């Protein structure tokens, strides 16, 4: 029994070291982050500022909105690269069941200057992209995380667009508009594209 306790006790520092190294290995530019996940041994690059989309609910209140964050992810697994979009969904509508916030996120269409790009859900957990935890900070505790596998070209197309909209499925579908004047997010996305392989 005591041996088990010792093992557990010994595990905490190790876990702590691993977690601290997750932070310590973070090499950051001003606009993108590149971090190494010591648990899954992948290197992940993200834009520091994800794009923000919103959907008004004027019948409820002026500031009652649904929000979506859209952030690119590059996962480097020993030289094998994969690309994803993360969507973080949340709402300021208190009456909405958090479970229902997932509705329609299984399939999302991003319109980049009118060009439709289909994003099909790859998964809801960080395991989908091969990391041990979510790589983007959730804006709120009950936000929904969703991951979509994409090509670098789809990311590039979105980065080059000035008018971006996002439409979920669901009954009925919902259209989200791009929050105005997100200079940091656009520049982060541009930087991400410039640093991605292809």
């Amino acid at each position, binding site marked *: 029994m005591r041996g088990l306790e010792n093992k557990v006790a010994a595990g905490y520092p190790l876990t702590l070291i691993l977690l601290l190294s997750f932070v310590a290995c973070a090499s950051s530019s001003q606009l993108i982050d590149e971090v190494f996940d010591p648990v899954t041994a992948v290197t992940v690059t993200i834009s520091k500022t994800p794009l923000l989309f919103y959907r008004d609910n004027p019948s409820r209140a002026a500031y009652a909105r649904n929000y979506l964050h859209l952030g690119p992810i590059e996962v480097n697994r020993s030289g094998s690269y994969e690309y994803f979009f993360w969507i973080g969904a949340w709402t300021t509508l208190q009456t909405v069941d958090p479970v229902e916030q*997932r509705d329609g996120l299984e399939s999302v269409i991003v319109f980049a200057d009118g060009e439709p790009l289909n994003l099909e859900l790859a*998964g809801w957990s960080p395991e989908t992209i091969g990391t041990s935890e979510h790589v983007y900070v959730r804006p709120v505790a009950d936000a929904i995380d969703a991951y979509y596998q994409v090509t670098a070209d789809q990311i590039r197309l979105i980065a080059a667009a000035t008018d971006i909209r996002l439409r979920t499925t669901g009954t009925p579908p919902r259209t989200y508009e791009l929050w105005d*004047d997100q200079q940091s997010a656009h520049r982060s996305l541009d930087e991400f594209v410039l640093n991605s392989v292809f």
Partner: protein
Amino acid sequence: MGSERRRSIGWRRLAEIFPLFAVATVFAAPGFISGSQITRGALYTEISIQLACVVEYLDHLPANRGERLRINLQATTICSGVSPTIIEEPQSYRPQDADAANLVEIDYESDTAAGQTLTLVFSEAVRYDVVHQDTSNSVTVRVFPSVPSAAAPKEISGTPGMRVQREPEPESSYVINLSSSRQPHTSLDIPDVVLSPGTKLFESEIELAGVSWYRLRLGPFKNTSEAEAQLPKLRDRFPTAWIARDSEAADITDTNLSASGDVVSPYIATNSALASIGLDQVDVLMSDARRAIVAGETSRAVQIYTKVLQVPNHDRHPEALEYLALAREKAGQTAHAKAEYQRYLSLYPDGDGFPRVSQRLVALVAGDRQAATGPVSSGTVAGGAPAQPSAWRFQTFFSQFYRRDANQQNDEDQIISQSALYSDVNLDARRRGERFDFSSRLSAGYRSDMLPEEQRSNSNALRVSYAYADLADAATGLRGRIGRQSRNTGGVLGRFDGVNLGYQLSERVLLNTVIGKPAYSASSSIDSSRSFYGASIDYGPVLENLELGMFYIQQNIEGIKDRQAVGAEFRYFGTNKSFWGMLDYDIYHGELASAYLQGSWRFPSRLSIHGLVDRRGSPFLSTGNALIGQPVFTFAELAEIFSEDELRQLGLDRTSVSTTVTAGLSYPLTPRLQINIDASQSTMDGTTASGGILATPGMTYSYYSGSVVASSLLKEGDVSIVSLRYSDSDTSNVVSMTFDSRYPIGRKWRINPRIRVDRRQNAADLSDEWLYTPGLRIYYRHSQKFRIELEAGKQFSQRETIVTDIDRESYFISIGYQAFF
């Protein structure tokens, strides 16, 4: 650190496998010519010259053949990592592997009459194409190899009274002349024709009456009947094609453009060594090319993919062509990349990669424009085909959903409360120009009530969410939008009809002005009683990713100030934390109209906490709120009764203040299992009695919720959620438990069974109510452009009051589709 690893992988291995192909390497140079790359291909040898500064291509001489090629440029001061003074320094440069292109050297002169000049000196007269963009930091020259004609005359030397002896005529001596031109055919002009075994595409040059003619030819054929058999197949594409004896070309020089094979790709070569490469070796080549591109060795990748394309009779041609284009794009050879993408789209219009390649081409075009003129839109013509930068592009999105709600109490008749068809359409039209970008959007919906006339609670309704035209000027940074639109910053409260003008003052400073009339509902027409104008400034990013914005806005209603506000907004996203705040202070009413602060912080222990404080007027503070409860229909009528000061006070009195404080945390127990906990309390202050309207009491509402989210339990992409929530208000308290599970089935189906159980205790009649709500969502993606969704649910409720029991049943069904084209 990732990039270093990319570069280190694959180089040695590739060099071992392909020593003969190792002719394309990027070499750096110290002057204005910063580097070069020479790639030997089957059709031509390509010289890519990298320049330290962005240049504008002017012209080149001679047009397509000669020993000295002069390319006139106009250099800009946009230089990468060097001072623009480098433009003034002449340079003489010999690239590595110059011999592969018959190149002696490249001379750079800066002070010529034409501006700057690159002179390529060849060891002999060669034929070439100059591939260029209007502005770029590279110039590419394709040098075509010269192949002596098989039927060229041969002189017997040393004999007086010279006699020309023609070599024995080859057995194959007929060709089909596809087209003739006074300009050499470029590599992009090579047609995609099916070649029969033993034939090839080539170009002949002949001089007639002192004029050089270039003939695009297919052959050889053994006899005229064999050629005639091919001719009808080519007439659609080449109506003027004709059959000629190859011996007619006694004084021509032939250039191979492709060779025999039965594949349409012009890359196919006759090289027997290539033809003997097995399909398994093609797979190895493709894998190596992939590794090369990942390792950042794009020139290697270009070589390998080109080699793969030269191997006949394998099914990886489309993939190789796509990746060849991709590799060229990554190598900065954008003109080449575009050509390859276009070739792919032409060769494989039904290929799986067609949409993807279209998007890549669009992105490439957009990227070029962005580099040249700042962020602008991209485009394809309708149908998804790639478009030229200035083309119009149209996109339509359409959806229809039918919704039916029904309920029944005890044994009474079922009541259909809703039966309606919701139709939505979104039309986008765009046109990109060199300087101006135009876009327009119409987004509208229509609700068709399908209930009998006497049962309708809502009539048919048209909703216009967006209807605007937008014009952006890349030269000045001005942008204007007119029509029904929406804004969420600058104090604007969402949708409005009006004009928004933006001006990018500098890289970090954006100015906006807005004028219009609010359209709080998409169903409403233009509100003639209210109008507003305002200005805002956005600055950022500062201090990493902090963005700041400030605004002033004034809104009038019937000539009286409705709201006059100043405000600010900030947003910050860091690696492990984010903050967002907004403040809107109404200086006319002297009250805080809205304040919002939200923060999220993730600790090294992976615990994330979040907090939110939201204080706002409800409804939003405005003088127009004075109309609430008054026995008149318009504000103008109210303004005849009360003075402006009284109206302002009445507006304040009717506006309650809502305050919400929320705190929560989330923690990943494992990568597949996460727990979330939230607590929130909201209060809404009461309003005072005034103007003949009674006071309203305040209200409180709070909830506490926890959920466990399990992902990928059965298969990748599934999720199951169990949540428990307790909410408490002045009228009831509710305990809810939800189980929600979502499964992907194959690539096209998703199902989502769910059930929710609520226990509600109502304060008004002390009743106890149980509600059971099972439901099912099914999603089906038929194609990239068409999807169907079904949602159905039923609710059973049992309510026990002191007097009686009430059983209710209700159901709903919603089914619809989305399509875009």
